[in-house]
């Protein structure tokens, strides 16, 4: 693992990605100690102040410190989407390995169902589920996990089919090994690198999805400091108080770019080509 981290950090993109991601994670964890103000503290005498030495990133329409809110703003998004990425990778990865190993008609039928889900406009479907089940993490984590898991399934299944065609799998079948041991002992170790990269990639996309939900009013609820919600609340003031939108956008995009660069570097370090997502 240490060797992998060293390999990733040795690549320019990996170093940038690792730094950005770590910074954001640390910022989220250490927010109570880093933020100069309570992120929900309203101040009628400090509405829409421009960035200054007192408020480094200015204040919003309720006089709250934007810097403090940006620091806190990633906490919920990172936690919820990381959990959802784990869910997506686990179920999508397992199902992908299973269908890639089994093949045949079962695989064919399953892939048609997967195709059907991939053709659904996921954001609308997501909004439908959340409007029924509520906007809390209890609904959002499994919903995001399910939808992004479908795409993981597709990618992992393709890679699993190639692994399943190798001689050592044929040999294992010839030895009379059952399906479950083949999946866990033979297939999984040979696909774990793809799962890792896929998980990281889906995490970054989920961050964008979660922020979109917050922007639309279905993710974080006021007064939670959240980047998507901050953009939604201040978007009408772009021409007079752009700092309310600029800083949360910068925070969100830098984290997404960081995770993408990190995933890219991890893939290269593991000998994966992300364009095809199979071992090279």
């Amino acid at each position, binding site marked *: 693992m240490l060797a992998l981290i060293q390999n990733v950090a040795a690549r320019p993109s990996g170093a940038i990605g690792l730094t950005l991601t770590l910074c954001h994670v640390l910022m989220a964890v250490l927010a109570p100690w880093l933020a100069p103000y309570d992120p*929900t503290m*309203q101040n*009628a005498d400090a*509405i*829409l102040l421009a960035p200054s030495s007192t408020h480094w990133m200015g204040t919003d*329409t*309720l*006089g709250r410190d934007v810097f403090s809110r940006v620091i806190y703003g990633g906490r919920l998004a990172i936690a919820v989407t990381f959990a959802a990425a784990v869910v997506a990778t686990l179920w999508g990865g397992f199902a992908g390995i299973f269908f890639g190993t089994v093949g045949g008609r079962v695989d064919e039928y399953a892939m048609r169902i997967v195709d059907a889900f991939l053709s659904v406009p996921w954001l609308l479907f997501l909004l439908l589920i959340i409007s029924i089940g509520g*906007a809390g993490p209890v609904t959002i984590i499994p919903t995001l996990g399910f939808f992004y898991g479908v795409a993981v399934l597709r990618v992992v299944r393709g890679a699993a089919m190639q692994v399943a065609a190798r001689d050592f799998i044929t040999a294992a079948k010839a030895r009379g090994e059952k399906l479950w041991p083949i999946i866990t002992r033979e297939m999984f170790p040979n696909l774990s690198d793809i799962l890792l990269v896929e998980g990281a990639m889906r995490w970054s996309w989920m961050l964008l999805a979660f922020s979109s939900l917050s922007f639309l*009013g*279905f993710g974080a*609820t*006021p*007064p939670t400091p959240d980047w998507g919600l901050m953009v939604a*609340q201040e*978007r*009408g*003031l772009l*021409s*007079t*108080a752009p700092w309310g939108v600029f800083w949360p956008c910068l925070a969100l995009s830098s984290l997404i770019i960081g995770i993408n660069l990190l995933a890219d570097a991890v893939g290269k370090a593991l000998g994966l080509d992300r364009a095809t997502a199979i071992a090279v």
Partner: protein
Amino acid sequence: MKKSLLLSAAIAVLGAAAPAETLRIPHELGYGGSESMDPISPQRFYEAIQNVYSRLVRQGDDGRPSADLALSWEATPDAREWTFNLRPDVTFHNANAFTAEDVAFSLMRTQSEAIDSPTKGVMEVIDRVEVIDPLTVKVVLKQSHADFPLLVMDYRIRMLDAETCGNDLDALCESGVGTGPFQMVDFDPLGTTTFTRFDNYYGGTVGTENLELIAIADQDARVAALQAGQIDFIYALSAEQVPLFANNPNFTVQSVPTGRWVGLVMNTQIEPLNDPRVRKAIRMSADRDALGKLVYGKDGYITSCDHPVWSGDQYRAEIDCPRDIEGAKALLAEAGYADGLTVELFVSDISEGAVKMAEVLQNQAKDAGITIELVPAPADGYWGDVWMKEPFFATGWSQRPADQILNEAYRSSATWNETAWTSPDFDAKLDAARSELDFDKRKALYGELQKELWENGGSFIPVHLNTVRAFSAKLSGVQPVEDFSIRYEGIAKSGSDS
């Protein structure tokens, strides 16, 4: 000959090229496309009805009743019979003559059980309407009402063509045929509803050739549309939106003190809000002045103590309502919530500052141990799906006279009794107030009603708003009056839309 032909052709071309002035106004799509052209329907499309239909009496510049389709009116000494003298030579858009029969029809249908109009609670004071002659009508009331003209000044009490409506008092009439300055061309509440000027309008020449009502549900989108020149006018600017237009020569900003309010509503019949101590604790936890400053800016509001009657109304009661956290905690403890209370509040961007108001109250109430969980709801369809459906939700009301708002929103039988306020004593006092012919006594009764709402009611009305609107500098004739009193027929527009 050739020269005159060329000249004629040039004039024809220039005439064809000259754009007809179109006044383009947004509407909030508050009923999600179910907007009705019947003025007394609960889903009334008010931006449309105020331009298509006329009232008997309209609000004058001083806020008092002034002539519209009725030129004058007088009452018997006991104020039980009111005679209205109608304007002669008025025609509907379909060329039918406007007569006293139409007035009788339009007033009596407000009491229909089948229609169940929000105006029913206010207008059920009418016993019958007698047609004296084609231009004279007498309204006989069930009880004395010293301010009856204020009731018929309601923005929904519009005069319909009885014949077009089939003389059916119990059916909605969505014909769009009125005597107003604009006649409807195309009804499309989800898109653009279009109107053209009514050449026989009794009020004189209408300022623009056409009127368009364009559905834009989101306030930020409306602001963007005005900036982009896609519309000409927007209502209800927030304090932060004002600078977008204030120093721009292409726009005019108008600020008008009004009785308009945005508030929060607690259903008085649903736990835990059915306990008046809980409701009062929530209200006492608010610092209204700080809330007003945060949400509407320091010049955008006048504080209120949850009484719906605004400071410009002669019947406004004087109530003091300072923030009292200890008092709120004591009330909560008495009600069995010594360890704190958690309630859900449904909010949407339906009126200026509604979401921010909820956020500020949420922040202030936590000092009293009250946790308010905000539940965002979509703006389009809010009035049909959330309003009066949830236990705690946001609302918005335009300016109304004291008697009207107290009857329309707090009488037990009122259709828009949004707090589900049920009190026979309150109803009896409402009757007594409107029947009282002595002004001082009447004012005292209306004052007692407002104090009762502060003590036990379900409304949280922290401030009354200065309504701020912005419009294109191409417009002239926009009067500085509250929204329901704007005379769109008097607005002219210069230049083309490009």
